[in-house]
């Protein structure tokens, strides 16, 4: 075993062929410390670690998820240091859940050679809980032409990626767009980067819940999105900015081709971060402007009428979601996400 593979201490090595027996035994042998367990399982999560050194981090995220969802998680680590033609397995001996929680998940870690993709996929397929959706979380870079990705993604009802790891720009979204056609379009796709834009989308929608702001909507015929430029100056639009742009255009057709993406230099923000979203009118000063505010973190929104008079102001508190929380939101449903797909086709 490579020294880079670091697993939590509750993981015990097991013969790959005996994983199912070991998991079944957990439900048949009362754990006197934890009390009687109730076997429940809501989904399969196949988590593919991008690098053996990241195993501990991924394991911690899976643990967080497993603590609130009864899941069967299969974490996959591929590394040249692994034995060829052999899949090594570990199962978590106890529950990741907090003391007192009834949640009890099943966690398996597999270690394999990157070339052993078919063997790996066959092993994973045999380990999935029957009749439950399988989510395939790919934590690596662009999976185009990656054999491990291809072999495992065919097991999935939904593929979960993070386009920020694909370069966070237009090319990254091209990759996500291609995934929509994967398995002949039968697998849904979730992008953690899309979830990152949710506070903006929710804030825009909330502003137009206000009847006075909604009355201005017919006036708006253009939009702009400001995103943080890198320290070295202008940066092509980030995937986040493009996703918001695509979403605006997909929801309001007349904005198609009329969303301007503007890099701005502003200290304290990572490159690509969306800082401001505006809708405006060529014919009047009417506008809706939403701007990121520092502490306390949030989005401030202002609606102005045809005369440029401020008619409404809002503050939407926001929090930065951890990777575990982004993942959590991405596995809400195995179905395709029509909103994301429309945004991808309009960016």
């Amino acid at each position, binding site marked *: 075993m490579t020294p880079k593979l670091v697993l939590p201490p509750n993981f015990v090595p097991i013969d790959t062929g005996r994983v199912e027996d070991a998991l079944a035994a957990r439900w048949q042998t009362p754990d006197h410390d934890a009390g009687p*367990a*109730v*076997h*429940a399982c*809501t989904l399969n999560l196949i988590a593919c670690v991008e690098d053996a050194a990241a195993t501990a981090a991924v394991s911690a995220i899976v643990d967080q998820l497993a*603590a*609130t*969802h*009864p899941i069967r998680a299969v974490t996959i680590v591929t590394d040249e240091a692994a034995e060829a033609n052999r899949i090594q397995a570990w199962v978590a001996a106890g529950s990741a*859940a907090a003391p007192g*929680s*009834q*949640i*009890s998940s099943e966690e398996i870690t597999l270690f394999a050679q990157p070339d052993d993709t078919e063997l790996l996929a066959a092993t994973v397929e045999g380990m999935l809980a029957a009749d439950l959706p399988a989510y395939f979380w790919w934590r690596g870079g662009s999976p185009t032409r990656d054999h491990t990705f291809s072999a495992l993604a065919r097991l999935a009802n939904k593929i979960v990626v993070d386009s920020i790891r694909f370069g966070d720009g237009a090319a990254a979204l091209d990759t996500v767009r291609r995934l929509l056609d994967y398995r002949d379009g039968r697998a849904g796709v979730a992008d953690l980067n899309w979830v990152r834009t*949710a506070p903006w*989308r*929710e804030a*825009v*929608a*909330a*502003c*137009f*819940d*206000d*009847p*006075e702001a*909604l*009355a201005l*909507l*017919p006036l708006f015929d253009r939009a702009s999105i400001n995103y943080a430029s890198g320290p070295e100056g202008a940066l092509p639009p980030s995937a986040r900015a493009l996703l918001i742009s695509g979403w605006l255009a997909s*929801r*309001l057709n007349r904005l198609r081709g009329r969303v301007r993406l503007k890099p701005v230099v502003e200290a304290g923000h990572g490159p690509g971060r969306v800082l401001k979203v505006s809708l405006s009118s060529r014919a009047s000063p009417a506008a809706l402007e939403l701007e990121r505010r520092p502490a*306390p973190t949030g989005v401030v*929104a202002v609606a102005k009428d045809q005369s440029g008079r401020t*008619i*409404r*102001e*809002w*503050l*939407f*508190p926001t929090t930065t979601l951890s990777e575990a929380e982004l993942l959590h939101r991405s596995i809400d449903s195995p179905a395709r996400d*029509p*909103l994301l797909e429309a945004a991808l086709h309009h960016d």
Partner: protein
Amino acid sequence: MATAPIVNPFREGLRQDRATEPCQLVIFGASGDLTHRKLLPAIYNLAQAQLVPPSFNVVGFARQPIGDDGFRQRLRDGVAQSSEVRQRDEGTLNALADRMHYVTGNFDDPRAFATLKSALAEFDQRYGTGGNRIFYFATPASLYGGIAEQLHAAGLTSAADGKPAGFVRFVVEKPFGRDLASARALNAELLRFVTEDQIYRIDHYLGKETVQNILVFRFANGIFEPIWNRRYVDHVQITVAESIGIESRGAFYEETGVVRDIMQNHMIQLTSLVAMEPPQTFDARDFRDEKIRVIEATKPLNTDALDQAAVRGQYGPGSAGGAPVVGYRQEDGVAKDSITPTYAAFKIIVDNWRWAGVPFYVRSGKRLPKRVTEIAIQFKEAPHLPFLKSQVEAVEGNVLALRIQPNEGISLKFGAKVPGPSMRIRSVMMEFAYGATFGTEDASPYERLILDCMKGDQTLFDRADGVEAAWQLVDPVLSAWEADRSVRFPNYPAGSWGPAAADQLVARDGRQWRRL
């Protein structure tokens, strides 16, 4: 030509598919216990989950002169003390507190309502709430009519300051009257000032996740509905049991009793949800129509032979939680010769095609051995058993139990072969536990219902005809029992499952209560 209303195109597909509109929430009885213990923590939870609209504020109104600061302190205390608050966040608390105001006044004082009116107009401007108001009556029901009249007289039930009226909604708490006549009078009084679609009658039981899950269980799964009828179901048992006594609410309970407190509302709601036909949609009209049809199809209990269909009880001294406790008549605020029932069991017949001949045995009581709310569908036995009698004697009929609280979940009892060379059959339970399957914490019933009211969704609220139909069912029982003082109380010791007559109620039909 009329122009089509503009629809918010950005709302579709988001976490909340129906928007909460900007509004002011005005609480009458703002210094009271319900506001402090339930409403303010629920509003805080909604704010914390970013479910309240950004244009939103709360106005408290009550006699006690506590001022804005006092009202805000109640929020802080309520949030600190409530077990229903999921995540305490100082930022959310401060932001909400900043939008909370208080008006001191008597509920019958027109000047106080004039003050309230100008305050609401000012807050409309300040917070952008567009003239939308929710008036929450967290007061005794006897004050509802007077408050509604004052609101109307102050011009708060219609147009706001000459601008087009925003929405006006009344939220009223149970009990809706204390009998059919008073319920009708109360409905008529409120309907003088607002229309039925502006009245939100809260029965917090319908806000419980597990109660709503009855509908999901029945109507989102194809396998249960075909057997949910007289052909397969032998009978239904519904239990709402409490282990506690009346706490310090002796005077209240003397006026109420178990029939008004539980049977007329919660129990009839649960029975309706189990017995109703699938609604065409889950919009308020379709859903409530079907619920009310069940109540209307329920046979009135025969008051000439009431003991054949209804049993009342009152607890005497006994034990609870391993310690001796006093009887009901020894509780503070209770008359020494009280005949207020603390236990009731009914045999209900829903007289329609689906349920003909299937009795619903329902019971509720205080100082029972445990706190449990459960619906059990007892299925008929298999028509023919190809086993020896000795092999199957321990086998009971299949039971599907929906546990509302605690340990929310669903269990199915069925027969299974005991492993071994001989054919022996034993009943086993297959369990689904909410807590083991969904790690998220439930929203409290008040959160759900306040949010629904903000959205203008009346599905989970009672309608006037539903309330009156429920009273129509229990009113003759109440009248008969209140007129008959010959009953010998107490008739069950605290810590037991109720009077012996309740066992006889089901035993007469060759059945027995489930052991819970």
